[in-house]
């Protein structure tokens, strides 16, 4: 409520009160002055600002709904939210969540950061940096400001100068940021610092650039102000690792914020799941077959499979060895490789239960979420664009997928949220799923996605005609579309088949709906779930979209649970119990009883994906060895007698490669509007990717060098080669896995792999190379790092021989490592200047630079370093590397 709301007139800073006066108190009787003009500043006393603040942290208040103008003369109500920061170096605002979903703030907002700080006595310089209009107050007195940003978003501007000469090693400005240094003398006492920033406006993204407030002694570097002892300098060497920590911590902070925001939701779902569990408890137990003693059994899954193997007289392969198991498991759960340390720890943990422990550890790893995002991006046709969305684009709901799996959201809740399409459309809420740019029936497209993803119902043909090989009619698809649309859906002209009546009569397909015909919002799949719903589970029974969500996710809809467990099974076991997993109409399950068992496990355990995953991963069947001779036996593959090797997915290849290198991707920010000047409808920012799923199309349909991101392109080229899609206009479960010559080509010669093998200062392999150990140990560690196993004797000989020469003197005396990775800002090339000649020429230079890859480190002798690089190159190019055993 606004009962206590305090109205501020921001521009009336305390004039009389000296900035040196430490304990100034707000004057209780000060009246806000509504009609203040900028020229009055800062003459009259007023009560504009907090004159006290915490001294152990930075108190941040966000004020929504401030006016959209280039003036500070507005009043403030209560802050919409408050939180804390540790330092005045701030690169991100935590997300706002409602019911666990990202929601948009108003635009613009006022961001106020306040804190009491004690700065040692003496003459100083204060430095403000940031991209937005900013004012700095000390004890209520304005001491510095940054002007309002340039209003233009056109593309004909000039490249900004990002250099700064304030100190010798100062970090250059982030594109779009400005700076202002002011002289200031500290009396060594405690003062209240307040920074007011108007973020956004003109519908720009609410990004901060590299906002900071820092202080410098004469002759030294600026240090970011902080109530805790962070000691971050405004230099590359100090700021970049700080920024990395800030962003990593932000992931955890956002997770806590989600948790705080969705108490009500969790309660709803818990009640729903408790009710389901009770009902399931009353049902007769599922009969599990018994199997002979010879049949290896870890859990019930093996009994279901074993019974069938027994019938066929097949004895399954034995357990895979520990190294194979750990590689398989880690790639399946985290999407990358076990580290050398993880392999060592796993080997050391002798005795029973260590495989279970490894499964539990990896199920808890945040990488579980990363590995699921790429999967659902494909299945749910997540298709955002960096630039002007026109190619059937969606919003970037990748972030919602990621957060859902980080939080291990129950799958029925996950699907309900998807169907409801709430939250932020452009910044990572499931509302982004609801978008389909330049599509004349977006909700039909979405219905098709949902059908394939969760009902095994492939309805894409029904967009234009009744499906010849499927039972679906156009009516089904358009009824679902109407439910999503919350009103009758009319059939567009494009939803037809070209041709005359006679021609159509000859075709195999029937067009049962006429353009213009209207379909009401009615659940079409009576066979999966009756029309009747548990009304008490509906929050708004009149909402057809919510009804649709419940029709899909209700426990009575066994198809839904079946499709979900089958997707898990397919992912871990290499084929579906029902295969294809997205099209159930024409095939029967190979193991219907097992499917029923897994389905009930999912339904009865709160739709917890991890519960069912654990069952599958713990089974003997999952843990079996790859036995090529057994693969040739009839039915051995269909009955899971042996495992087959699977080629890594594109994301697994890229994530594993850079994990081997122990370096970040080092790409540009995935953002063609890095200085943040465009309308948020026309430019998205996918940030600096740290996992492969975060890449996106690079959207250079304009063929302009200045819109080219050369480092990112080396990564997306490699990803595409291995089957990643840079556009996902349609849902896909089965990616193309054909081997093409481009795959080994991009591994042998591609720049991404070149950078992986390149021993640069920021490479973990450089650190490994410097470790004081015999060359034999180095080779062993390299094998574990790349192939997750020890070398054979002959392999060891081959590489020890190659690396021995010069090994003793490999480290260059006196050389030191700069361990931080670069942050590529393209020197400020951005949409607003991309048509300038300078930008295009600079872009060409940056491209040439990228072609060279990373700078080789100077801490190792070039001759030996190159041999080490050759070794790494060889190990990642051996076919074994790109396969999951």
């Amino acid at each position: 409520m606004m009962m206590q709301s305090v109205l501020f007139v921001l521009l009336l800073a305390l004039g009389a009160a000296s900035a040196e006066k430490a304990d100034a108190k707000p004057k209780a009787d000060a009246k806000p002055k509504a009609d203040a003009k900028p020229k009055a500043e800062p003459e009259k006393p007023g009560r504009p600002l907090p004159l006290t603040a915490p001294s152990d942290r930075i108190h941040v208040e966000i004020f929504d709904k401030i006016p959209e103008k280039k003036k500070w003369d507005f009043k403030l109500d209560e802050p919409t939210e408050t939180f804390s920061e540790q330092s005045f170096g701030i690169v991100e605002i935590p997300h706002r969540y409602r019911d666990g979903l990202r929601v948009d703030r108003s635009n613009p907002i006022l961001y106020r950061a306040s804190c009491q700080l004690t700065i040692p006595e003496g003459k100083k310089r204060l430095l403000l940096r940031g991209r937005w209009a900013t004012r700095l107050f000390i004890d209520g007195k304005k001491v510095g400001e940054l002007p309002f940003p340039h209003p233009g978003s056109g593309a004909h501007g000039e490249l900004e100068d990002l250099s700064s000469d304030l100190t010798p090693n100062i970090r250059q400005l982030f594109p779009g940021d400005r700076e202002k240094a002011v002289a200031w003398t500290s009396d060594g006492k405690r003062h209240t610092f307040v920074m007011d920033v108007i973020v956004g406006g003109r519908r720009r993204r609410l990004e901060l650039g590299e906002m900071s407030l820092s202080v410098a002694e004469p002759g030294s570097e600026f240090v970011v102000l902080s109530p805790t002892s962070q000691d971050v300098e405004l230099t590359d060497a100090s700021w970049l690792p700080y920024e990395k920590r800030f962003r990593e911590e932000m992931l955890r902070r956002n997770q806590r914020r989600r948790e705080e925001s969705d108490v009500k939701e969790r309660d709803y779902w818990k009640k729903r799941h408790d009710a389901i569990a009770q009902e399931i408890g009353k049902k007769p137990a599922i009969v599990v077959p018994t199997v002979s003693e010879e049949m290896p059994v870890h859990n019930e899954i093996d009994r279901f499979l074993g019974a069938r193997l027994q019938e066929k007289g097949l004895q399954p392969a034995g357990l895979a060895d520990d190294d194979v198991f750990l590689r398989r498991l880690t790639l399946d759960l985290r999407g990358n490789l076990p580290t050398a340390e993880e392999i060592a720890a796993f080997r050391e943990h002798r005795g029973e239960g260590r495989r279970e422990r490894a499964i539990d550890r990896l199920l808890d790893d945040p990488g579980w979420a990363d590995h699921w995002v790429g999967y659902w991006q494909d299945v749910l046709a997540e298709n955002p664009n960096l630039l002007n969305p026109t190619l059937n684009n969606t919003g970037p709901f990748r972030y919602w997928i990621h957060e859902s799996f980080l939080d291990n959201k129950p799958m029925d809740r996950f699907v309900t949220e998807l169907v409801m399409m709430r939250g932020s459309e452009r910044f990572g809420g499931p509302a982004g799923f609801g978008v389909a740019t330049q599509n004349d029936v977006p909700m039909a497209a979405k219905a098709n996605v949902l059908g394939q993803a969760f009902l095994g119902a492939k309805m894409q043909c029904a967009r234009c005609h009744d499906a010849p090989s499927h039972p679906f009619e156009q009516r089904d698809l358009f009824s679902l579309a109407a439910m999503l649309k919350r009103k009758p859906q009319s059939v567009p002209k494009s939803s037809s088949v070209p041709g005359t009546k006679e021609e159509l009569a000859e075709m195999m397909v029937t067009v049962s709906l006429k353009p213009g015909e209207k379909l009401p919002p009615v659940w079409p799949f009576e066979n999966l779930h009756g029309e009747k719903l548990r009304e008490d589970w509906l929050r708004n029974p009149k909402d057809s979209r919510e009804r649709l969500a419940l029709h899909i996710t209700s426990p009575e809809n066994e198809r839904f649970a079946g499709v979900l467990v089958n997707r898990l099974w397919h992912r871990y076991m290499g084929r579906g119990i029902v295969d294809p997993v997205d099209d159930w109409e024409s095939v029967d399950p190979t193991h219907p009883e097992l499917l029923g068992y897994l389905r009930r496990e999912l339904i009865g355990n709160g739709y917890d994906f991890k519960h069912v995953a654990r069952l599958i991963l713990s089974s003997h069947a999952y843990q079996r060895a790859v036995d090529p001779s057994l693969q040739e036996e009839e039915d051995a593959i269909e009955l899971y007698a042996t495992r087959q090797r699977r080629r890594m997915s594109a994301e697994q290849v890229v994530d594993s490669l850079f994990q081997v290198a122990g370096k970040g991707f080092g790409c540009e920010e995935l953002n063609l509007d890095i200085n943040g000047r465009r309308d948020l409808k026309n430019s998205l920012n996918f940030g600096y990717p740290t996992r492969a799923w975060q890449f996106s199309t690079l959207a250079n349909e304009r063929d302009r060098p200045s819109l080219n991101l050369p480092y990112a392109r080396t990564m997306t080229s490699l990803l595409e080669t291995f089957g990643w899609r840079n556009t996902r206009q349609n849902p896909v479960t089965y990616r193309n896995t054909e081997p093409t010559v481009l795959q080994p080509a991009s591994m042998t010669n591609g720049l991404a792999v070149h950078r992986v093998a390149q021993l640069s200062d920021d490479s973990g392999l450089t650190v490994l190379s410097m470790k004081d150990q015999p060359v034999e140990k180095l080779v062993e560690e390299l094998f574990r790092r790349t192939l997750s196993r020890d070398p054979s004797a002959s392999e060891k000989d081959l590489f020890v021989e190659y690396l021995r020469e010069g090994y003793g003197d490999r480290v260059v005396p006196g050389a030191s490592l700069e361990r931080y990775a670069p942050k590529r800002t393209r020197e400020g090339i951005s949409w607003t200047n991309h048509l300038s000649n300078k930008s295009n020429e600079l872009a060409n230079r940056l491209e040439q630079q990228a072609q060279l890859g990373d700078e080789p480190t100077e801490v190792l002798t070039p001759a030996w370093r190159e041999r080490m690089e050759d070794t790494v190159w060889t190990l990642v190019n051996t076919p074994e590397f790109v396969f999951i055993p």
Partner: protein
Amino acid sequence: MKRREFVQSTMQAGLAASLLGASPALASHPASHGAMPQGKAEHVIFIWLGGGASQIDTFDPKAKGDAKAKKPGSYYDAIPTAVKGVQVCEHLGKTAKVLDRCTLVRTVHHEVIDEHAAATNRMHTGRPTTGTIVYPSIGSIAAHQRGPANDKVPAYVLIGYPNITRGPGFLGPRAGYVYLTDTEVGPSGFSPPPRITNQRRKQRERLLSRLRSMHRGDIRAEKALADYDATIDEALRLSGPDFQQIFNLGSEPDSIRNSYGGEFGQRCLLARRLVESGVRFVEVSHNLNFVNGTGWDTHNEGQLNQHLLIQELDTALAGLVLDLERRNYLDKTLIVVGTEFGRPAKFDGRGGRGHHSKSFSVFLGGGGLRHCGAYGTTDAMGTKIEEKPVSVADLHATIHASIGIDPSEVLYAGERPVPITDGGKPIAELFG
């Protein structure tokens, strides 16, 4: 026959799935509807003027306007060409002299004007986007239908930035492109990185071959592994000297290099070399944004130096026509100069031009077609079609037919039939 042998031999070598072995479409040819013209060309060089080249300032000149006075019309004077009655802009003087080997299709049209990406997609795939499948680009279709003319090279090479609209869509990666962005560097994936000397490359290959040979048995035992392993040798061969030699423009005489002009011309020269080596389809993107800032997207001040772009195009295009002709490749190679849309006759607030898609020009040269200098007519301002409209599907059909692909043939996206063009009809007058 030869090609068939190659497909078989690569099958034996386990290479069937490699990009080079992109097999002719498996779909059987349905009986053609009516008499679909069949050209005899073997290759396409598709020059792409990204941004939307102004037809009224290039291939379809009209009465001169005045940018300052906001009087609509051409920005330049028109000049006569080798074909009587056909004029082009004054900065296309070299192309004007060889226009008898060419046809300016002046009545191409579609309805996408608001967005470059969407229009680029339309011109490359011939269709609007849908939410159900991703359509292949014209280059990918050519690669898929005809494969390379020589088994040692890829079917489809892109000189420019990769993007969705140039991709293989539902045809899958085998119909994709090999790309390069810099003629000095060579194609991505097939040129060893700059810091890797030849000696080091050999050293690496030796290590890899020894390591692979230690696992020969395991690799052969599993098909997926064996298939992947087989492609490695092919990749290594392509990054070796034979394939790399194609990219060595330094081996061309200076006179030839100069006849093509600057960096864009060198791209066209490389396209000729690729075609001669057997590449089926080469897309060459024009990359000279820095000349006028905007490239062909001549809003505002972008108009001021547009003539420099046109001159560079003129030199390269005429150079390409004459060089191909000298080498007896002109009849075998269709040159297409395309763009996502044209521009209106009127000027914008700062003397440039907006977008216009109701009528614009696409250049066709060589390819054994019966050329007529210009096809189709537009009104006095070049913004409305008066005669002989050519849809994007018709344009694609013309290009496909010129290299012997039936534009009505049906491809399959999974089980869904998708004709190569949506009812496109080749321009009949150009065949025969």
